């Protein structure tokens, strides 16, 4: 275990990505190189088969309802607040959250909790400042909101770029993670796993649009929450529902492992107790704050999440959906913490789950998977494996849909056709884009198999926080914002967040193989700097903007504000 402790900082920083896949590379960096292919697990494959067949029936039903572009993008705006809350949770709770965070808790205890909290705290900000305004101003994509009173072409081009860049990095990370995970869980070849994920995601989105995607996300959320609840309750039940007993057992096991590792009694006791407090995750305060900002504000700039607010009929339903989503996601993170501690007791002490060196069979991220076997036997193991696969599918379907919408609605219908595209041709473009995105995602997933892709999800969050969020925020809330300011500031945020990530240690040194200490940007996340650049850029280029367009932009604020606050003039349930 000493190896795990000494590398936990790096592992956790990598996990910082928080994406569905980061956990794979994370464990890979620590001990595996690549995920080891397991024996074919027929129970898991059977369970997953049931899920797939069921969701394909839903897709067939959804396809019969997907006739217009509006059906495709927003399920006709007819999803209820409660349903949308579950779907948002299903869109957001990735396999990284489930497997990665429970594994991080098993390895380092308290440090895992820091991630969970970071992923959750963006939601109130979305609720207080964005959700209802988005619903009142937008129709299909967040660019509808960002470009509301501005010149359409430049803002749409920016928003589509922001969307596609975020979606691309997020999607590659998901695909590579899916391939590694499925290789581990189901014993399938990597490329087969990637093709299956790509094909299923294309079928859901292509035929069922937002309706099918929503239901896949809802079903996945219910399965994941149900499975995690069962695991956490089993763990707590074992300890007579006493958290103190659960923590004491974990501390004792960590202490014993340290003793076995040759530590003297006192040092071993310190190591054991260290899981109960913050460890080495946060080294310098700048990284801590910057990373916190990327997670908090990145959540409010993820295009596939923002898009979900247009699927509900009213601002009230939009608010209700974030309330439910926050509740479910918060509950889920409490469960992963218990699952991680349960894994210390049930997995780390059971030779059945360990290799010769005392590491977990199949890699560090298998904590929750082995725990499911320990508490529920082979059938439950199959169920949890299928849930992990379903989790990735639901996330990639949401991502693909938002990427396709950016191309068909923002670029094709608004920029190319100047808003004159008919619903049918717009739908056609969405479908073509879906296929292209699916093929590209599969190709990149296979191309990146051996790459360390862990930084990609953190990059996606940092870009969302530094490009999409500032533009959305300023265009909705700041009167003097202009087209020029929004576009220049937004692109500055986009470029600086990508550039700073490339020259940060996790990419410059770990991925590109440059010598240690040569990275120009020393911090774990660019958000503190790139968000500042974006906001200052938007402000500066707006106040310096004296063009005729700028006067129009500012004059449009009052009407936009009233609509965003009251919904008067916004499309209703059937008005989409």
């Amino acid at each position: 275990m000493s190896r795990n402790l000494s590398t936990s900082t790096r592992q956790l920083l990598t996990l910082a990505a928080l994406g569905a896949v980061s956990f794979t590379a994370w464990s890979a960096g620590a001990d595996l190189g690549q995920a080891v292919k397991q024996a074919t697990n027929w129970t898991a494959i059977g369970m997953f088969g049931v899920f797939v067949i069921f969701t394909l029936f839903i897709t067939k039903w959804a396809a019969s309802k997907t006739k217009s572009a509006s059906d495709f993008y927003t399920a006709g705006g007819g999803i209820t607040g409660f349903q949308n809350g579950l779907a948002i949770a299903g869109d957001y709770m990735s396999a990284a959250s489930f497997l990665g965070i429970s594994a991080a808790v098993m390895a380092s205890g308290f440090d895992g909790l820091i991630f969970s909290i970071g992923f959750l705290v963006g939601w109130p900000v979305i609720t207080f400042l964005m959700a209802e305004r988005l619903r009142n101003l937008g129709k299909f994509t967040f660019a509808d909101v960002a470009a509301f009173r501005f010149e359409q072409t430049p803002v749409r081009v920016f928003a589509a770029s922001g969307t596609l860049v975020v979606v691309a990095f997020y999607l590659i990370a998901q695909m590579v993670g899916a391939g590694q995970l499925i290789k581990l869980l189901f014993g399938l070849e990597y490329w087969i796993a990637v093709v299956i994920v790509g094909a299923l995601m294309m079928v859901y989105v292509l035929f069922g649009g937002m309706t099918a995607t929503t239901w896949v996300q809802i079903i996945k959320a219910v399965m994941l929450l149900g499975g995690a609840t069962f695991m956490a309750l089993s763990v707590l039940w074992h300890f007579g529902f006493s958290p103190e007993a659960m923590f004491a057992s974990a501390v004792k096991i960590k202490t014993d492992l340290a003793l076995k590792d040759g530590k003297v009694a006192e040092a071993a006791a310190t190591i054991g107790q260290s899981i109960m407090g913050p460890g080495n995750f946060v080294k310098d305060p700048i990284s801590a704050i910057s990373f916190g900002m990327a997670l908090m504000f990145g959540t409010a700039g993820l295009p596939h999440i923002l898009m979900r607010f247009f699927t509900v009929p009213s601002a009230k339903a939009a608010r209700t959906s974030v309330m439910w989503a926050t509740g479910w996601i918060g509950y889920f993170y409490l469960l992963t913490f218990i699952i991680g501690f349960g894994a210390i007791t049930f997995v780390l002490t059971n030779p059945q789950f360990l290799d010769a060196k005392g590491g977990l069979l199949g890699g560090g991220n298998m904590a929750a998977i082995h725990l499911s076997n320990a508490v529920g036997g082979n059938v439950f193991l199959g169920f949890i494996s299928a849930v992990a696969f379903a989790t990735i599918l639901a996330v990639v379907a949401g991502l693909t849909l938002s990427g396709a919408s950016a191309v068909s609605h923002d670029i094709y219908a608004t920029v190319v056709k100047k808003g004159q595209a008919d619903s049918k041709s717009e739908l056609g473009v969405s479908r073509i884009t879906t296929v292209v995105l699916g093929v590209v995602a599969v190709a990149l997933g296979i191309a990146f198999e051996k790459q360390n892709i862990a930084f990609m999800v953190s990059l996606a969050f940092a870009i969302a926080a530094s490009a999409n969020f500032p533009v959305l925020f300023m265009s909705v809330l700041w009167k003097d914002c202009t087209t020029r300011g929004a576009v220049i500031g937004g692109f500055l945020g986009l470029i600086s967040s990508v550039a700073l990530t490339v020259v940060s240690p996790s990419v410059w040194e770990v991925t590109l193989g440059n010598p240690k200490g040569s990275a120009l940007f020393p911090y774990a996340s660019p958000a503190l700097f790139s968000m500042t650049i974006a906001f200052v850029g938007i402000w500066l280029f707006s106040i310096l903007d004296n063009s005729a367009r700028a006067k129009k932009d500012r004059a449009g604020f009052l009407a936009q504000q009233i609509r965003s606050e009251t919904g008067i003039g916004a499309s209703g349930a059937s008005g989409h």
Partner: protein
Amino acid sequence: MEADLAATIASHPKYRELKAKRTAFGWWLTLAMLVVYFGFILLVAFNKPFLSQRLGDGVMTIGIPIGFGVIVFTVIITAFYVRRANSEFDTLTDAIRKAVLK
């Protein structure tokens, strides 16, 4: 939206009330969330021993309830906003709608 309708709504007392109340409420809650979250992050960054100190004789530390507390706080503050918005603010919005859209 036509300019005169926008002007009518903007000068409507109920709209002013809604805007003032909701803006203040939203920003105060945002501030509260920022203070709680970045307070937690700064504790992690600057005062690890504080979070690692034990409560009583067992292994439980003060950091665990604080961490759980941040999660619970996040969920509660969100529900708190939504409850008020879905009753009081929506009532005001409906009143404005009725007054201006005859």
